[in-house]
């Protein structure tokens, strides 16, 4: 088993499949009255969050606690970071406290890779800048597999702000490893040629959502990340929504069995219409529930053994 989960590229097909299978067993255990399992008793998991997060932090915290690990939550606000402490010094502090795993979210792409050089424990990337978010990709793959029964040969459209999306990057890496065919869809400003070229071997790129929908098993809507957009990538929110938003009329173009995903948080009415987000095809709430099972599987497989 691997030691760190810094990138979805750390996972080959057998390892990724093992994580998904383990997550399925964890999900089966989550229906019981006593949800706690003793596997990580005595281990310490630190949630090191330099960026705001609701679902990812809570999800990791719930996962670690269900496996009986001790959880220390660290958020940059109100800590020594606001006094100017560097990531390295913070890492050395955690090291001295004996953290067995550090779950890190950071605005700088590559922060988990640096951190892995400074601590002895396992490092789990919970989102670094515009780079990667591997556990989100795992829970998305898990959701697709549990809804549609397979990943191999599945046609997945990832729609929207590909440029800034760590979710998209991790999903492309993981889904192609597991045999799915990914098509990136969005305005040319948000899928620049260099990004398209870098991903060209693994994926297709389209600028026309309506053409892609009828041939998709999964459509994954990305959040328009206004906080990362200093420049204007499209003329107006209304125009973006008209061309790349998933509304009821567009949803009808999908095949009967297709599902609609969103990593959250959603901008309702922008990239996804409320009627679509709340429809039976939407897996948005399911994704959150699956997130806990998948993160339990990751923590167990990274920390459970020798």
């Amino acid at each position: 088993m691997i030691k760190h989960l810094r990138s979805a590229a750390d996972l080959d097909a057998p390892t990724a499949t093992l994580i998904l299978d383990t997550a399925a067993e964890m999900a089966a255990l989550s229906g019981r009255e006593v949800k706690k399992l003793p596997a990580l008793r005595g281990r310490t998991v630190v949630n090191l969050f330099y960026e705001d997060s609701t679902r990812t932090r809570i999800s990791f915290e719930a996962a670690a606690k269900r496996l009986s690990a001790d959880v220390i939550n660290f958020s940059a606000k109100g800590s020594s970071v606001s006094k100017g402490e560097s990531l390295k010094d913070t890492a050395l502090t955690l090291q001295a406290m004996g953290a067995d795993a550090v779950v890190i979210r950071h605005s700088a792409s590559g922060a988990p890779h640096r951190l892995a050089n400074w601590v002895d424990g396992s490092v789990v990337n919970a989102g670094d800048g515009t780079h990667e978010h591997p556990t989100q990709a795992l829970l998305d793959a898990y959701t697709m597999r549990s809804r549609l029964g397979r990943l191999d040969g599945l046609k997945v459209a990832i729609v929207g702000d590909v440029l800034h999306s760590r979710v998209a990057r991790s999903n492309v890496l993981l889904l192609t490893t597991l045999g799915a065919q990914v098509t990136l869809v969005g305005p040319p400003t948000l899928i620049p040629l260099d990004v398209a070229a870098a991903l060209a071997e693994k994926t297709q790129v389209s600028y026309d959502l309506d053409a892609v929908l009828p041939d998709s098993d999964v459509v994954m809507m990305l959040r328009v990340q206004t906080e990362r957009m200093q420049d204007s990538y499209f003329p107006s929110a209304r125009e973006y929504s008209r061309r790349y938003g998933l509304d009821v009329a567009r949803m009808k173009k999908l095949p009967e069995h297709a599902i609609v995903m969103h990593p959250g948080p959603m901008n309702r009415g922008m990239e996804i219409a409320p009627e679509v987000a709340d429809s039976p095809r939407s897996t948005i709430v399911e994704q959150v529930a699956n997130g806990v099972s998948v993160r339990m599987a990751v923590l167990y497989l990274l920390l459970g053994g020798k």
Partner: protein
Amino acid sequence: MAQPRADAPSKIILAESDLHRVVDRIAHQILEKTSGATGTVLLGIPTRGVPLAHRLAARIHAFEGVEVPVGSLDITLYRDDLRLKATRALGRTELPPGGIDGLRVILVDDVLFSGRSVRAALDALNDVGRPSSVQLAVLVDRGHRQLPIRADYVGKNIPTALSESVKVTLTETDGADEVKLLGGLS
């Protein structure tokens, strides 16, 4: 536990027909000791305890027409040696639809050795319900207990040396029914 070499001498302890007779006998003993297996649930410990539990239930049904619910109880997350070995894949825990509360649970495993798996199973059981009582059925008891645990139903007692190992294969998991003793210093 020391693993014997692949070319180590091996001895067949139970051939296919012996193994079937032993399962039949345990099924009879369960019927006898539980007054007809009412209020009883069989829980197999993965991997090979699960097919054994199903076989026992099938034999009990053949002998007396009683349907005994069967389930599986994975103990991986409850093991006390998790950290001593590489990470293990999880098995499946599946309780019968009626649950186990207030019922007599018979744990089923292939080999009883140190007793640590059974300890883990008792812990796991504690988290999934409250049976009225718990019993243990094993195909082979090879001795060398490290905990105060004993089986209620034993297919065969096999005196072993610590350097030896007992290998149970079943048609469902390994393609053949057999119990072998491997290794030793001979």
